[in-house]
């Protein structure tokens, strides 16, 4: 057991940050992009534009804890307006991460603290956080 696994709230602790990409490198609204900031071997977080905001969620469905996308960067519904878990068909509100259809209705994706720093999308999560494994 590391200190991190005993501190799952580490996402909000100001102990580190990770630069993901230039904001300009994000796809347009209606698409998403996955990232593997801790070298887990798969994309553990994904980012999408909503209006003027960029939202970053943990790629971890509250139903069974599995990755959402069916293919690299394919996290959204066909119209780009919802986040879908392509494992068991859960639909999530893209703005809040709340599950509105499917097996985990009422539960939410974990939104991760992120900000833009001099044009770079930055995750306020320490690189050794268990959320990124």
């Amino acid at each position, binding site marked *: 057991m590391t200190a991190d696994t005993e501190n799952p709230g580490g996402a909000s602790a100001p102990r580190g940050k990770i630069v993901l990409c230039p904001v300009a490198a994000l796809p347009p609204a209606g698409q998403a992009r996955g990232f593997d900031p801790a070298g887990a071997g798969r994309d553990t977080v994904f980012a999408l534009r909503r209006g003027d905001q960029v939202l970053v969620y943990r790629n971890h469905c509250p139903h069974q804890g599995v990755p959402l996308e069916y*293919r690299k960067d394919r996290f959204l519904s066909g119209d780009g307006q919802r986040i879908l878990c392509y494992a068991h068909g859960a639909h999530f509100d893209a703005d809040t991460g709340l599950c509105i259809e499917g*097996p985990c209705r009422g539960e939410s994706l974990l939104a991760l603290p992120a900000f833009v720093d001099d044009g770079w999308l930055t995750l306020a999560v320490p690189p050794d956080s268990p959320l990124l494994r």
Partner: protein
Amino acid sequence: MNIIGPDALVFGVDDVDACSQYLTDYGLTPAGDGRFEALDGTCVIVRAADDPRLPPAIGPAPSIREIVYGVGDAETLEAIAAELSKDREVRRGEDGSVHADDDSGFHLSFALTIRRPFTAPADLTNAPGHPPQRGPNLVGIDIDMKAEPRTLSHVVLFVPNMEQAEAFYVNRLGFRVTDKFTGVGPFLRPAGTDDHHTLFLIQTPPFMKGVEHFTFHMGSGTEVLLAGTRFEAKGYTTFWGPGRHFFGSNWFWYFNSPLGCHVEYDADMDLHDDSWEARHRPAGADTSQLFLFTAREKWFPSGPPPKGGAH
């Protein structure tokens, strides 16, 4: 009743292009009008969710809209129509097909099978203690070897009342329970096939009703591993596998998909006849698989070749 198994699965989807690309990359052959075929002609059909040709939806798109069962003879169609007419609406198509809902509300149709005879090579094995299947100078592996979906194997349904759903298929359509996960659901074999299962039912809350997965039979475990490796290399997301199941003994590798359910590669399933007695086991990691692996990127123990090339 000579029901063979599912011949076609019809989906209503929100992204037809993504589903078409997916099914093509999976290895099915586009045959036009949203139809994607295996070697024997069994198929998946994808249509826009608002296509008027589709039966009503069970849940939000993407989702299953119709399960088409192939039957071996016209007598079976008449027998199904007569049986199901006793307690539900049955519609007949111009081709004699029979359309009705099962007890869970899934839209079914029954038609003379579309399965075409075909031949394709087997994965021959050389096992010490047994006569060789692959003689001298016959190599087992070719870098470009084919790994194509051969025939639609089975579909798995989330149902709100597993016992009621099982009773419908057993008592009304002549399916047999080959094995059962206690409290979870049965593996079901219709009379027209000896495959361990063409249908598996899983008890879930009502709002999850739908397809959990479907799969096509590949030619062997090697083909499951090869097709899955190629599919993953195209960026598709593994859900479970590769591994080998206990019930049915089939190899498996499940992927997420834009069709609203998982899509599997399977191979080498057990065959049964009516003398088989169903096994009942609790569902769990130890009863559902003999082993499970995680695919990883190819690598080589000695690292890259030396600079300047080998001599």
